């Protein structure tokens, strides 16, 4: 198959992140009858954010299930179904609502394989939009990367572009462990070019491996999800000034690919982390701690620096909201500070 597709020249498709997740789920639903999707509005409404558009029409009531507004209940039901041999995709309309169900994610899903001494696997995917959106205020804007990334037994992924989104959702569904997929609502409508590999039904992005989106020599900039795009924008601006940033897209929060980050820091001697979540006890804090503990520390010419969301509940007014998330100018400022420019 691979040889044939290499011979045939296919034009590079433009696929939005939404379409990519939809494709990934569709392909996995087709491939394995045990896969099913449940959540609020996923079936007849086509998904609150239209991510599951067309799936109910194609697969029907048995495999695409609308739930009542009962996060704790349906997350538990999904975990139980996984224990009994099915492969559920449990959608949280946003991860803010997953807080109601977090006991089922952590205590019933994440810890069970360990507690049972390897007898009871839980092959489940929890997915949905995570983090800040636009004007949805404090209760609908929290980033859960650090909370879920904290827990052994879980895998946590955070796609940025369409290839990430399709490849990671497929890997997550095929994984025999509980996987949290942190999507981003503001990215759903953004189109990206799809390579010919990404168009294949067996295209997988491995969990636990970061991707270097842009090579550079002066500084390592590490990020996940939507801020990866901001980092690339910052890199473009800085390139005109002769500063070449190496931009790393983490793709996976847990297990973290610290080796890729370390190898880059050894090369560039400078590190800036960028995330949408709050600063305290966050993803960037973890990266910095691990860099200090590892071989890359001795190659740092300056302290590692974090760019994060502001340490406040998300405000509503646009000027306040804009300044509560990392902007391109904030990333550029942090990079220049680190490089002492």
């Amino acid at each position, binding site marked *: 198959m691979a040889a044939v597709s290499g011979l045939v020249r296919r034009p590079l498709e433009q696929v939005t992140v939404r379409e990519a997740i939809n494709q990934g789920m569709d392909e996995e639903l087709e491939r394995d009858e045990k896969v099913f999707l449940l959540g609020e509005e996923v079936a007849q409404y086509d998904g609150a954010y239209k991510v599951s558009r067309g799936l109910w029409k194609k697969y029907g009531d048995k495999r695409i299930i609308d739930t009542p507004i*009962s996060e704790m209940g349906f997350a538990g039901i999904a975990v139980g179904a996984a*224990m*009994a041999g099915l492969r559920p995709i449990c959608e949280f309309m946003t991860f803010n609502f997953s807080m109601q169900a977090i006991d*089922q994610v952590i205590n019933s899903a994440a810890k069970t*394989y360990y507690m*049972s*001494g390897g*007898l009871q696997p839980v092959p489940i995917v929890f997915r949905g939009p995570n983090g800040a959106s636009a004007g949805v205020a404090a209760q609908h804007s929290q980033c859960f990367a650090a909370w879920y990334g904290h827990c052994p037994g879980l895998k946590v992924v955070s796609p940025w572009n369409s290839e990430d989104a399709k490849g990671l959702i497929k890997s997550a569904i095929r994984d025999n462990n509980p996987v949290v997929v942190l999507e981003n609502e503001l990215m759903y409508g953004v189109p990206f070019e799809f390579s010919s590999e990404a168009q294949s039904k067996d295209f997988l992005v491995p969990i636990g491996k970061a991707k270097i989106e842009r090579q550079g020599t002066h500084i390592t900039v590490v990020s996940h999800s939507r801020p990866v795009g901001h980092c690339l924008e910052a890199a473009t601006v800085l390139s005109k000034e002769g500063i070449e940033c190496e931009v790393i897209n983490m793709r996976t929060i847990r297990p973290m690919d610290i080796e890729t980050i370390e190898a880059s820091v050894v090369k560039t001697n400078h590190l800036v982390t960028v995330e949408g979540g709050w600063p305290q006890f966050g993803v960037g804090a973890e990266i910095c701690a691990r860099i200090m503990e590892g071989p890359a520390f001795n190659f740092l010419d300056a302290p590692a620096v974090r760019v994060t969301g502001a340490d406040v509940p998300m405000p509503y007014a646009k000027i306040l909201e804009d300044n509560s998330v990392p902007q391109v100018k904030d990333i550029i400022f942090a990079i220049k500070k680190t490089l002492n420019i």
Partner: protein
Amino acid sequence: MEEKSWERQQASRVLVASRSFANDATFEIKKCDLHRLEEGPPVTTVLTREDGLRYYRMMQTVRRMELKADQLYKQKIIRGFCHLCDGQEACCVGLEAGINPTDHLITAYRAHGFTFTRGLSVREILAELTGRRGGCAKGKGGSMHMYAKNFYGGNGIVGAQVPLGAGIALACKYFGKDEVCLTLYGDGAANQGQIFEAYNMAALWKLPCIFICENNRYGMGTSVERAAASTDYYKRGDFIPGLRVDGMDILCVREATRFAAAYCRSGKGPILMELQTYRYHGHSMSDPGVSYRTREEIQEVRSKSDPIMLLKDRMVNSNLASVEELKEIDVEVRKEIEDAAQFATADPEPPLEELGHHIYSSDPPFEVRGANQWIKFKSIS
């Protein structure tokens, strides 16, 4: 797999004794209170000698196993939490008698009895309690986290097991294999919100889920009257039909379970059973169990409603068994428990190298961090 030599003994006992004992007897059992049901389980049932001997042995095994656990805990060989179910033997043995091994069962933390009736040996259970490598979870889980085929624990978070059970029932329906899931919770857990979420979805989607409230009158130290605005737990499912069952009579439990399982298998959706039962021990080993109830109450239940005594009296009075042969079973059970306790005490703890194992399923080995960055454990699936 444990050698079931007692099965051969059973068979020979039945054969040799068949000349002097009845093969079966019919008993009257208490009528169940019904909620949204026209008819309930039958009020008489036939007990065969073979079944009776088996139920007796199983209940006695659970009873002695729990008492042994009490002893080991007081000797500090068992640590942490230990929630014992002596007094409630008719529930675990009766439920198992009413279903097939291919059906599914999930319960909360008072789970040792169910772990046994679902098929694990006393050895593996006691060794898990003592945290040894021969434990059913390799010492990784302890009292509240034991698993077996079609038995999903052993769950520590009160109420969380109920949506899990509804999910297992969803899988039963999805696979179309005519199986049901028994989803147990206590009178304390019955007030958890997520249980009502599970009731709603189970009824909406007609899941083959038997919700079972094991009402032993106390949620830890809080009596049912102090915890619930309605203590009619069999009615709390509202739109879900319910039965209130005498949980101290194993035959009552068996018949009610058969009835409930048939209801679910017919595709009518979930059903709820309240088993009225009693625990002799306190909530856990750290609770003497007499600050919120009287010793007189405990003694009254022991003398009038003990499930093992009730079965024994029935069998002896109907000539299904003799006092002597039941005593023989007692002796065999005691020996089995003693041997298991020996094993559980002598077996070594799991090797330290296994600390990091079983984080993920089906993955290549990786490293897990220990107490500092220089301590690393290998993690194997």
